[in-house]
């Protein structure tokens, strides 16, 4: 299959091919983002014993398209005395980093856009840029609610980025590499070899910090509707609002994918080490049970579901409690676990660090 494809595309220049692949990937990602919004409404509807949107198309599957058409044809209102250029560019600033980070994500062993040495650093750098969209939007709107929302966002994202960064330090200590493909390969073995178990505190910290970074419930004080209406995007309408909305979901998918890669073995199959090795060589069952991109997608989907689940389950945190959790609970926890991990690495603690 792979050989057949590489023979087919051989006459085209690699730069053009990459550009086409990227375009296709971004379109697929946008479709995933649109259907995540539908999934959120249906899943939360189910959890709250109601139906959710089910009128457009079978089972409401046309709803994201209807929403997109509606938002596209709405007028984009520019607030009085707003900074025209920054107001228009802010949604793009919030969307672009969420897309750029996908460049280094490996879907399976050989399926990725760029296999770079400092992949993990690149991911950290890209996700730390997303906050500019929020801050610039809040400032350019010339509105008190928007400014307050963006100040909250900046403080929250900067605070949780530190805990997130330390969780990643733990991962790179265990794998000895900043390359995402090598990190996944270092987790090979069985489900128990994946980093969620030896790095359990870091895994939980990463997941919680990921929810806080994407400003999702229960950490959604940035757009807490009972206090500051909609926060930083209160003045946006039409496509401007749609871009922020899509950026939020693109970030959720990104964080879910990263959690799957770093702590749940990415494309590795959970049956590895459980069923005998010759099963993986069977025609169809072997491909399904064996490692591959489908396991990465399944794990990512699970974490996306967790994001929706959290939203339906937890009440919103108070702002000072968010700061306390970030600085006084998660940060010391990661620091302690990095020291513990250092000791375990030094004594070559089996079966993970030998």
């Amino acid at each position, binding site marked *: 299959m792979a050989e057949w494809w590489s023979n087919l595309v051989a006459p085209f220049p690699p730069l053009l091919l990459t550009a086409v692949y990227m375009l296709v990937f971004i379109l697929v990602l946008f479709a995933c983002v649109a259907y995540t919004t539908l999934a959120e409404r249906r899943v939360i509807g189910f959890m709250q014993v109601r139906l959710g949107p089910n009128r457009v198309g079978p089972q409401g599957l046309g709803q994201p398209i209807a929403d997109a058409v509606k938002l596209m044809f709405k007028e984009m209102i520019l607030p009085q005395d707003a*900074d025209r250029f*920054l107001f228009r560019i802010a949604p793009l600033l919030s969307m672009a980093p969420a897309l750029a980070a996908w460049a280094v994500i490996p879907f399976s062993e050989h399926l990725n856009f760029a296999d*770079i*040495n*400092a992949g993990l*650093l*690149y991911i*950290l*750098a890209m996700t*730390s*840029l997303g*906050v*500019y969209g929020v*801050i*610039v939007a809040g*400032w350019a709107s010339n509105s008190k609610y928007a*400014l307050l929302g963006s*100040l909250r966002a*900046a*403080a929250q*994202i*900067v605070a949780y*980025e530190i805990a997130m960064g330390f969780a990643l330090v733990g991962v790179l200590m265990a794998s000895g590499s*900043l390359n995402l493909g090598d990190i996944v390969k270092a987790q090979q073995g069985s489900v128990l070899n994946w980093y969620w178990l030896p790095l359990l505190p870091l895994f939980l910290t990463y997941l919680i910090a990921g929810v806080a970074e994407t400003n999702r419930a229960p950490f959604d004080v940035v757009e807490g509707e009972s206090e500051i209406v909609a926060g930083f995007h209160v003045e946006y309408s039409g496509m401007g609002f749609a871009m922020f909305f899509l950026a939020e979901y693109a970030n959720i998918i990104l964080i879910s994918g990263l959690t799957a890669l770093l702590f749940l073995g990415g494309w590795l199959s959970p049956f590895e080490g459980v069923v005998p090795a010759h099963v993986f060589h069977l025609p169809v069952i072997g491909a399904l049970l064996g490692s591959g991109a489908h396991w990465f997608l399944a794990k990512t989907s699970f974490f996306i579901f967790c994001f929706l689940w959290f939203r339906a389950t937890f009440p919103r945190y108070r702002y*000072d*409690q968010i700061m*306390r959790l970030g600085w006084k609970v998660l940060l010391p926890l990661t620091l302690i676990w990095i020291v513990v991990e250092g000791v375990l690495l030094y004594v070559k603690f089996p079966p993970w660090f030998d």
Partner: protein
Amino acid sequence: MLIQSTVFYFFSTILVASAMAMISVRNPVHAVLFLVLVFFTSAAIWLLLEAEFLGITLVLVYVGAVMVLFLFVVMMLDINLAKMRAGFARYLPVGVLVGVIMAAEMAVILSRPAFNVQKPQSKPADYSNTQELGELLFTEYIYPFEIAGVILLVAIIAAITLTMHKRSRAKRQSPARQVSADRSERVRLVSMDKD
């Protein structure tokens, strides 16, 4: 080669233009955003020099953390532009003098033989810049590296101590007590006769 120089000139043009814009725009928030663009494009040029670790770290540390806090502060300033520009003509000679001295100093330093470097040789594809840097930092430069870390830590502690002032009469919440509160502290069930 052609692609490389095209990319270089593309980013250098943006770099120089946004650096000029940063010191000439009126609005301080715009100036900060231009500075962000300067950092970002210089990171791209570093990537072109195969210094990927430094390039990405520049984005991560300066753009992702330092400039966010900078923007945070500048956004909340209420700057009177007319008042700031009032003494422009009066300070111009001093400013020009300082500028000329700085340019002369840079010219002297950059013309020294130490800066007369050859074009760097490109490394093979499996060469890891990150690993080389790490090995140097933790072997040859371990003491300067650790001392720099300690100095930064002291600066953090000093900054926190400066802003801490204990007010004895201030009311504080105790999160531990808030979390451990149970029903008996909040609700009292009473049985009442119906009449």
